């Protein structure tokens, strides 16, 4: 068990996948020689050679389309889109091709590809470099979506995503790259679709994912000081998401708070809330409350971005509303 940075866990998962499966290849803008804009692919070119780790021009649509074609032809491509905001340029390949090929060709092929996409604010990168768009992908049958919050999960989910026979959108949080966490050696794979109880509790279920996990854990500690024992669930996978785990938690606490950095309206939390307002209705003792970004583009200025990203204070306020 050693402390590892989130970004290093990603690199390790890529290296281990490249080493263990000769079908795995990596490509994207500046991922090879430069080692990736966020250093996530550092050293991999040197280790695995230019056939398997390659730089591409700035051609997002063709890159992702090529990943689909390569996956249909038996490789397991892992492509990087530098900022999740740029997936806007590759939506056809993801949504009309990758997601549908298996189904619409009658199961003749699958599309075992992974798209890595950093999302999230916190570095004042402004409106076109900070968005959290995972809800789009979770809405598309045929795609899977995961979003790790810790180094161990970053490793375990990436390896699972690469092993998966179907296309997986692997969402990383830019602000987490430098954070550290325990990573067991060897680090186990994390099955897609399985949530984790990050903090057990009895009074309220706080369901979250990605970077917000840490904010939620902080809020839970504050709540503990107020005598409230919060359970914090880290979804880890968003499509499929672990409905059973959320329902089980709700059945223990009877109160539900959903937290994510993505815009609240029409975000991932809406689906969880909607399911629980149906399947979990009898368990609910209070309104389901969500905390997400406000309905505005991600602003640049420090003072604005700081208020944009959901804070511990906002989570506490929301929790108190659920507990009232």
């Amino acid at each position, binding site marked *: 068990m050693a402390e590892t940075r989130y970004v290093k866990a990603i690199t390790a998962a890529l290296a281990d996948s490249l080493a263990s499966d000769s079908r795995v290849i990596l490509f994207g803008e500046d991922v090879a020689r430069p080692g990736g804009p966020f250093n996530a692919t550092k050293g991999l070119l040197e280790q695995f050679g230019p056939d398997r780790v390659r730089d591409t021009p700035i*051609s997002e649509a*063709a890159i992702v389309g*090529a990943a*689909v074609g390569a*996956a249909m032809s038996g490789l397991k491509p892992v492509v990087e889109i530098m900022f999740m905001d740029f997936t806007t340029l590759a939506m056809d390949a993801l949504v009309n091709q990758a997601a549908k090929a298996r189904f619409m060709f009658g199961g003749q*092929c*699958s599309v075992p590809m992974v798209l890595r996409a950093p999302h999230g604010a916190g570095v004042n990168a402004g409106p076109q470099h900070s968005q959290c768009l995972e809800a789009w992908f979770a809405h598309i049958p045929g795609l899977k979506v995961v979003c790790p919050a810790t180094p161990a999960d970053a490793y375990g989910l990436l390896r699972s995503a690469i092993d998966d026979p179907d296309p997986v959108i692997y969402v990383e949080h830019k602000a987490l790259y430098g954070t550290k966490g325990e990573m067991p050696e060897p680090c186990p794979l994390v099955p897609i679709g399985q949530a984790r109880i990050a903090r057990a509790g009895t009074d309220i279920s706080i369901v979250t994912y990605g970077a917000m996990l840490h904010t939620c854990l902080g809020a839970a500690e504050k709540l503990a000081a107020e005598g409230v024992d919060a359970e914090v669930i880290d979804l880890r996978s968003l499509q499929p998401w672990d409905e059973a785990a959320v329902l089980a938690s709700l059945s223990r606490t009877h109160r539900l708070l959903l937290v994510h950095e993505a815009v609240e309206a029409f975000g991932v939390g809406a689906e969880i809330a909607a399911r629980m307002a149906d399947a979990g209705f009898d368990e609910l003792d209070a309104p389901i409350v969500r905390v997400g970004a406000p309905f505005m583009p991600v602003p640049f200025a420090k003072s604005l971005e700081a208020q944009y990203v959901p804070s511990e204070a906002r989570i506490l306020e929301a929790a108190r509303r659920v507990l009232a």
Partner: protein
Amino acid sequence: MKAPASGPKAMATMAAEEPSEGLRKPAARKPNRTAKSNTSSVAKRPAELPKDALLDLYQTMLLVRRAEQRLSALFADGEIPGFIHLSIGQEAVAAGVCQALAAQDSIASTHRGHGHSLAKGVDLEAFFLEIMGKREGICGGRGGSMHVADMAVGMLGANGIVGAGLSLALGSALAHQLRRERRVVAAFFGDGAMAEGLLHECLNLAALWKLPLLFVCENNGWSEFSPTSRQFAGSLEGLAKTFGIPYRRVDGNDVEAVALAATAAVEVARGGGPQALECMTGRVRGHFEGDPQRYRDAEELAQLPKIDPIPRAAARLRALKVSAAALQELSEKVDRRIEAAVARGRQGTLPDFQEALADVYTRPSTSPRAGV
């Protein structure tokens, strides 16, 4: 219906290796980049095809024609759901290009892909079953005309998105290159697709990476209801030249010309390096069945039968001393196959909803065919 051992395909000097799952030599660093790109013209070849090769091509064209004529009738009778785009009059492109490919080579196709499918060897019955929306269809009835695919014969799919097949072909060619397979991918696209930026990106990537990729523009002059002359100010020739990709233009209604040019291009591409082939043809039917084509000149339409590739090939065959009786027999054989396929199509069962729903993702029990 296809005879891989004869015709221009047999002229290819190098047989493709067997496909493998992973990269053959994970430690190897460099793809095969020995073959020189050359932007010059068609390789030296006999200007005419041997009789047997031409006969193969004729038979393929006839199969496509009759299949589509039958589809047209079935569509009019309400036996086909959705909409269908026919390639009647353009069969020489599909036949000529696909005969230049080896069985292990693959293609990516378009919304107007029936000819490509049949010429690449998709099973005729499974093809009709699919388009008629039946469970036994090649795609289980889930895709229909616009999504016919058959991984077993290297048909990576028709595509409902104009231009999208280009990048799938690019990725497939990358897989072949990395596995050192010497397999080629042909990407069909229409003249209308030339306006899509994806073409530009794929030309660039194919050139940079020297991929075994053949860009085949099936230029029928129309993009839906608009002539391409009002849609595209550039040219494939100019683009190919800009990216250093050898370019050939042929009369797309002369099946021999298509086959010879495609064979030459495929041979170079197999050595490593993209090639472009533009086949000039004409769209005979409407954009889709049911389109009355009011926007078209009577004169233009009247010209089309005169350049029909099928009578042209028949005349050549007669000159090569193939008897009228032999052609007649062949025609009847094709018709019998088609009728059998239609009959089979009608007998097909309706797809089951739960079965489809359970097949959105791979289940441990479902084993997809090996990738192509």
